[in-house]
């Protein structure tokens, strides 16, 4: 089982460059999320999606865009990279198949470490 796959694992960008962080899941989960993690701040939700074609902003969406054309893919786009976007980015998906029996959970990717210089 691949689970949630993020690429690339590491990237260095120059200020003003753009890039797309890729996220793919093979579990047929409807819900997908993008988080950024900064020291001492925990993980902050950037964007999320409840299904193909549906996305919405999280806590810190400025400077990012997302799309969800398929159930499997949820790419995160940085249009004009800024030093403040230096962070570790995690993609996640979730399932809630049987709440009464606790059959629910979240699967996280291994992260993308992005540095903007």
């Amino acid at each position, binding site marked *: 089982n691949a689970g949630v796959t993020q690429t690339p694992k590491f990237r260095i960008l120059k200020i003003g460059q753009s890039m797309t962080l890729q996220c793919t899941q093979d579990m047929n989960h409807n819900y997908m*999320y993008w988080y950024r993690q900064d020291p*001492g*701040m*925990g993980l902050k*939700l950037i964007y999320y999606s409840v299904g193909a074609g549906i996305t919405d902003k999280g806590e810190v969406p400025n400077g990012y865009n997302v799309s969800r054309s398929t159930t499997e893919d949820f790419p995160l786009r940085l249009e004009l990279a800024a030093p403040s976007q230096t962070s570790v980015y995690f993609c996640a998906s*979730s399932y809630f198949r049987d*709440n009464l029996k*606790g059959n629910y959970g979240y699967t*996280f990717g291994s992260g993308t470490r992005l540095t903007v210089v």
Partner: protein
Amino acid sequence: AQSVTQPDIHITVSEGASLELRCNYSYGATPYLFWYVQSPGQGLQLLLKYFSGDTLVQGIKGFEAEFKRSQSSFNLRKPSVHWSDAAEYFCAVALRGATNKLIFGTGTLLAVQP
């Protein structure tokens, strides 16, 4: 405002000592509750989760957590800490509903002294 609070930024315990990491949440209804652990440079690993039922939840690596509705708390405990438990621990809550967004606390960094 809705929030998850981990009041201890950094904790140091001696190997073999007991451990309790605190987590409080502020939501209108009882959310799903989680504890994750993250070793340096690694991803997130789920320790345990709570939805309903028995308020004492057992997890992996000898961890347990107790949900206390009256205190809006979900504290993580371990009776005897091992050096390999040194890591950062995150409490998280998921709001029950259409989005199931997972909201994290700011984390507690655990150091273990020999």
